[in-house]
């Protein structure tokens, strides 16, 4: 191909991408009519199932003609299911939410995602959205430690990851699994960066109860089945605290992994219009406030107010996530973790 032709081609591509967007970005009447005809949106999400269904209920209240099918599982399981379906030629998912942000890098590389910027996302800070408009951080949470206040006195509670290696925590710890949970995986990556695999090898000798989801561990310490949680969603802890469960959050002194959780629309979504209406809804102040108030999450929307009883992010030492650096290491992290802690 000559230089001129190549230039023309790339110009053509740019032009087509810019000038004829497949569908509008904002929710239009035509989009709503088409979405009503599609009848529903299929949402794969890793957020706690009750939070997910509450979002779905709020959406249905706003758009009664569009149903929401929620498929909830751990982020890594969601990723596996979508890839397995894609490989088998099954088109089912419209919108995805995962707490392993590296998934979106992978899907974007594979060209499986549709570019779509919800109107509210224009106001998000640049570090919380994809520059090409394929995804944005719908929510964020921290992978925190925690304990049951009936079983552990505040003065005895561990303050850091290093404290958990103390023999007195043997048989009392519960942990989620990075092979299942994106939050756990993101957290494991951050912990390994700070403390090394050596730390996890020592932790594995503490007779840790191995659960799957970071939504499960807060429920475990709330029930009193285990005393201390190594990792779990901050938002589930907020939910438990709002329910008056006897639990407290620990922000470890080494730093707390900050986990962003984007959503995106698939390019071959079976309900493309409903998907866009839903994606736009997810980032509205109303939905974001619901995710924060009822769902305990951190929002990246500038207009959302945090309840007064939650420690502001600015006062917590954070271990930021780094999806691009994590992506090539995901397989190895899961493998080494499973060797230490089992399935």
């Amino acid at each position, binding site marked *: 191909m000559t230089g001129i032709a190549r230039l023309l081609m790339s110009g053509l591509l740019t032009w087509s991408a810019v000038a004829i967007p497949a569908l509008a970005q904002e929710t239009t009447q035509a989009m709503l009519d088409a979405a009503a005809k599609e009848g529903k949106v299929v949402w794969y999400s890793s957020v706690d199932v009750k939070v997910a269904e509450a979002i779905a209920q709020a959406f249905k209240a706003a758009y009664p003609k569009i149903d929401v099918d929620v498929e909830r599982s751990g982020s890594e399981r969601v990723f596996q299911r979508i890839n397995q*379906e894609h490989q*088998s030629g099954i088109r089912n998912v419209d919108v995805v939410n995962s707490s392993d942000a590296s998934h979106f890098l992978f899907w974007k590389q594979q060209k499986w995602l549709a570019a779509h910027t919800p109107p509210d996302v224009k106001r998000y800070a640049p570090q919380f959205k994809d520059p090409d408009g394929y995804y944005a951080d719908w929510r964020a949470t921290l992978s925190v430690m925690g304990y049951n206040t009936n079983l552990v006195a505040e003065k005895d509670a561990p303050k850091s990851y290093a404290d958990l290696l103390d023999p007195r925590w043997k048989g009392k710890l519960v942990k989620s699994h990075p092979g299942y949970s994106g939050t756990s995986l993101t957290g494991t990556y951050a912990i390994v960066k700070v403390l090394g695999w050596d730390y996890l090898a020592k932790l594995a000798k503490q007779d840790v109860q191995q659960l799957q989801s970071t*939504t499960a561990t807060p*429920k475990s310490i709330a029930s009193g089945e285990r005393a201390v949680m190594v990792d779990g969603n901050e938002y589930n802890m907020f939910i438990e605290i709002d329910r008056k469960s006897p639990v407290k959050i620990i922000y470890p002194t080494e730093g707390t992994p900050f986990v962003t959780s984007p959503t995106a629309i698939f390019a071959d979504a079976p309900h493309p219009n409903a998907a866009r209406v839903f994606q736009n809804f997810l980032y509205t102040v109303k939905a974001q406030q619901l995710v924060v108030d009822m769902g305990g999450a951190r929002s990246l929307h500038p207009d959302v107010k945090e309840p007064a009883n939650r420690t502001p992010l600015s006062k917590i030492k954070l271990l930021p996530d780094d999806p691009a650096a994590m992506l090539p290491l995901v397989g190895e992290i899961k493998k080494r973790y499973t060797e230490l802690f089992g399935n």
Partner: protein
Amino acid sequence: MPFSLAIVLVLLVLVLLPMAWLAVTSLRSDSGGPTLGNYRQLVGDASFLRPLFTTLWTSAAVGTVCLLFAAPMGWLVSRSDLPGKRALRLLILASFATPPFLGAFAWVLLGGPNAGLINQWYYALFGLKPFEASPLINIFSAGGMVFVMALYTFPYVFTFIANGLDVIPGELEEASSILGAPAWRTALDVTFPLVLPALLAGFLVAFLQAMTLFGPPAILALPARIDTMTTKIWSLFQFPPQLGLAAAASVPLLVVAIALLRTQTLLMGRRGYSIIGGKSGAITQHPLGAWKVPALALFAVVLGCSILLPYGVLLRTAFVRNWSAPAGLANLTLDNWRFVFIEFSQTRLALLNTFALGVTAATAGTVLATVIGYLCIRRLVWGHSVLGFLATAPVAIPGIVLAVGLFLAYTHPPLMLYGTLAIIFLAYVTKEMPVGYQQIRAALTAVHPELEDASRIFGATRLRALRDVTAPLIRNGVIATWILIFLGSIRELSATILLFTARTKTISVTMFDLRESNDWGPIAVLSITMLLITFAMIAVVTRFTQRRII
């Protein structure tokens, strides 16, 4: 002739095609060339040998525990004047009908070492504190898993033994006591050797059942970081699936299952000698006297652990906000029910899928089993013994192994069934075929061919004789078969767990998903729903057949 060939073809596709794929895939490398690498990794890697060892010893333990409890229970129900036998048999039937994964859920709530309700009572009773004292029960252990598996496997052993004792003529024992032997001597020298084959067969069946379960190990052993072969195979299916390894890891399960069943056939084949006495009279019912109390206590403990406590805790959990807190007024709620039946968007799809699969698998399975049963028992076609063999062969294929085979056979052209209900349907029909075939055989054996012959002598065609004479006589058996396959299908987990996709979820995998996030309230609601459906169907089956299942 072409008809029977078609039936053989259907069975070959159902049974042998997935197994052939399994064999071929296990011998193929990722690049497609032939290799023994998968097997080499299997025998050389501790992460495979340990689960295999765990599976073997826990299954043997389940078999032993079942024998220790079910053998005396079988003897008591068959040979003693124990009161309330009918009710006891009904409760044993209830344990049989309870899906083991459901029992495992319930036992997490009862036997969790610190929050489990039994341990909470234990700590409260003795003024102990969780974590400081060791718990009464730690359900998250290999022992806990064996305990729960035995609770839902013992009915198989019980049935073998009670039925075995029922066919041993009482005269043999009477002769022994007339000759002056004390009761224990008669039991040891006469009854025991006669019932030994049934005991061993019961052990083997319990072993086989325990070995193939996926729910209890995944729910109880994984949190303690213990893998069994079924959870190991399942973990190999996480994307990207390691198909060659999964296929190779399925082979040991298949080989052990076949060996167990061969041994069992050999043992049961010898039972002829136990009915030497000819037509026997009434069986003597040994008076228990004061022994009634420990005898009833045995039933109380076993049935309490398998039925009363689990059902109780599920019912309680379904109606409270916080399952581990006292069930005071402030804790009571209908939220779990509202969530499951109004908010949870998977309930409707999962119920629909489960019913669609149950009804279609039961219908297709019954039709197939009836046709094969009829052809085999009347020896109407050439090759009927092959038909009979193929129809019973799936009994040796553990559910998860069948699922691996089906996944391999139907995730690529020409038949892309993965992602549809059809692949799960095939799994259910194949898995339930032996049950259906045995049921139909039993029904048909009871109808003497003379009845059909009479009809034919009067000029009826074979089809007419079948329609007017045989069909009405086996109707109840056919209905019972349908319901048994339906029940087997709606509770299936170990094969479904590898074959479902988001659109083809069933109630059982939906519950398994909820377990991974510890949502016990909704799990309890779905459990109760499933049990209600199950018992309603069993009520129907007993009404139609008017005979004992257990």
